[in-house]
């Protein structure tokens, strides 16, 4: 009986989906464990163990201050994960609402918001985020804010085009005839039908946020020392690239796994 169910499940998931789930699952485990436990204090300096290669006690080695890399990667992944998640939820959420409302209503409000949107899109997005951070100052919360703002236009555009298509369908007319109000039509009737577009967009957005956060922390604009984030760790490793390559390799691999895992998951969400 159990064997039967297992076989069914196996055929249900494609290779892409399975790989995506395993990789994303690994990251999630890393993040959740990192919330409660790290083998060492991630900020504890140990002068005796500077740039030590991986050993049994420090499986990923130690950095230039003798801090345990495994512990720092766990904390850093957690930081990157939550910053990216918040960014995509805030930016994607606002973008979705704007796109949904403008796409459904059309007319003047649509023109107005879309032209503002075009304005924001006209700037290279990372550059815009850098300028914003430059104005409001570096820090965890500030890069969430800056990245959220540059995420809004793309989500608004995607959702608008979806709503333009959906609003012409008869089920929307039917809902109107039954007396449903604008907000009920937008959020209860139409929004669930855009999930094939929305979920992959969120997954891709999450990935972009991971890379953007890593990039900004690398430039010391994001997470501030001594806190760890994946980008921060990459940035710190660069002076020791030849002597202690694990300083760069380990956070690099985690970034790749994270982006790949959620990217693959997002693709399969779209096709279902």
């Amino acid at each position, binding site marked *: 009986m159990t064997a039967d169910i297992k076989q069914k499940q196996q055929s249900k998931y494609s290779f892409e989906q399975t790989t995506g789930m395993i990789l994303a699952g690994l990251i999630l485990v890393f993040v959740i464990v990192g919330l409660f436990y790290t083998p060492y204090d991630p900020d504890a300096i140990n002068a005796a163990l500077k740039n030590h290669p991986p050993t049994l006690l420090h499986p990923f080695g130690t950095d230039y201050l003798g801090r345990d890399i495994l512990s720092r990667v766990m904390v850093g992944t957690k930081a990157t994960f939550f910053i990216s998640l918040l960014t995509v939820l805030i930016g994607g959420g606002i973008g979705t609402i704007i796109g949904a409302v403008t796409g459904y209503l059309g007319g003047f409000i649509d023109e107005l918001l879309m032209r503002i949107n075009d304005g924001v899109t006209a700037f290279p997005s990372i550059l815009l985020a850098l300028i914003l951070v430059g104005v409001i100052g570096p820090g965890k919360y500030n890069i969430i804010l800056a990245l959220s703002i540059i995420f809004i236009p793309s989500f608004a555009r995607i959702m608008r085009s979806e709503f333009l298509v959906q609003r012409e369908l008869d*089920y929307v007319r*039917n809902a*109107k005839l039954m007396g449903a109000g604008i907000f009920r039509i937008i959020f209860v009737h139409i929004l669930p039908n855009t999930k094939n577009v929305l979920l992959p967009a969120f997954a891709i957005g999450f990935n972009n946020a991971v890379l953007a956060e890593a990039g900004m922390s690398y430039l010391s604009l994001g997470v501030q020392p001594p806190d760890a984030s994946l980008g921060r760790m990459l940035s710190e490793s660069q002076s020791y690239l030849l002597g202690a390559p694990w300083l760069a390799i380990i956070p690099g691999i985690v970034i790749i796994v994270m982006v790949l895992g959620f990217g693959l998951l997002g693709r399969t969400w779209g096709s279902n």
Partner: protein
Amino acid sequence: MESDKTILTIKDLSIGFETKKGLLQVTDRISFQLKEGEILGLVGESGSGKSVTALAIMGLLEKKARILSGSIQFLGKELNGCSQKEYENLRGGQMAMVFQEPMTSLNPVLTIGSQAEEMLLLHDTKSDPIKRKQKVLELFEKTGLTQGESLYDKYPHQLSGGMRQRVMLATAMLCRPKLLIADEPTTALDVTLQSKILELIQKLNREYKTAVLFISHDLGVIKKLCKRAFILYQGKCVEQGMTEELFIHPKQEYTKQLLSASVGRDYKVSKQKDSVLLSVKNLSVFYPKQTKTFFSKKTKKQVVNGVSFELYQGETLGIVGESGSGKSTLAKALSGLLTDCTGEIIYHGREKLQPRMVFQDPYGSLNPSKSIGWLLEEPLRLQKKSGSNQYNRQQAEQMLQRTGLPIEFYERYPKALSGGQRQRTAIAMALMTKPEFLILDEPVSALDVTVQEQILSLLAKLREEFNLTYLFISHDLSVIRRFCDRICVMYEGKIVESKKTEVLFGQPENEYTKQLLNAML
């Protein structure tokens, strides 16, 4: 004109699709022959495997589909397992195909002339440009495209559906193919155009001795055009023979069912009632025209032009017209979906009557992300008529039963339902708040004939049970004739004639009505 030379022989053809759940067989050992100069009808409802068979002959099956067994012999050559290269030589030159949807079968960015000429470029490499153009123009002339020269440089969007279908036919016939496959070529066209395209196919068949495999779900069309026909049902060939024989003495149960559906029962109730439910006076409806720039002045297009009529309690009023006649727009104005109108819409005896509507496309009118139960309860929630969850569920289940659907459907999603079942659900949804008046906008036009019949009889039954008044909009005269007590004929936004059904069909007065009735098959 018919000779004994066999052009196409299909033997035991089985085709299957690879799906996630394994192989799904769609046709089961189909066999038939097509002789030179013959028109063979292939009848079947959607999902019967008729289009797949046509695509298999043309070698155009999609990647997931496979020919499982059997043979396709064309001019003595085996096509099953033949390479794409060999197919490329045959397609266009020896065999050609015309599709159902003229709106999408032409490339929108190329001129009509260059698209037609491409056929010659590929198959008649020796000819020079002047000769090619001559040849194309000659065929345009033959297919009734009289403005040949100027048409040559036009783009598809500048042409009407009927003209596009003529262009498709002209292009298909350019190389004088031995076989023409026409896959529902008239289904997307208005009735008056339909008969003209059919005549054209007949003419081309006579002049070029091209064998035609004519695929349709419309028995009237098949009867008019084809000498011989065969009937597909669920991938199997149910019956075949001479059309006359088939239509007069059908042997199989399914054929009989199909025939009785196409002849159809009469659902009229001729009890005339006096009280007026709705009167429309001098109603005009406008659509905003798309503006090109942000600041340009907004202009309107008048779609319905000064329409007046009255609807009596308990009657069924039919509105018939071709696409673009404004009948759907009228429905939307009456239901309140379009508000940009002048004139009066008066619902008698009540402050505000909430008309409900059933739409044409059962695939678009149900929200795909909600369960049937949710959909049925939504009108109750919106009308503040909803009670406890249990009450709502009870109401929904009752309505499922009354519309002939199993109660288990409460948990299902629209995806799992067939077209007919979806339309039943749409009707159930419309009836949840117990309205008196229902607007039916082409409610059976997207359905197969046998399903059409079931939905019509359901509507007739519900009319009795709920004491409903219907406004029935359709382009299909045979349906309107059987279902409606009174008919308004619409043409270019106006009602040109309005009479009792028998009177209208007996003595049409208006010129357009006569034309419409003549085109009816």
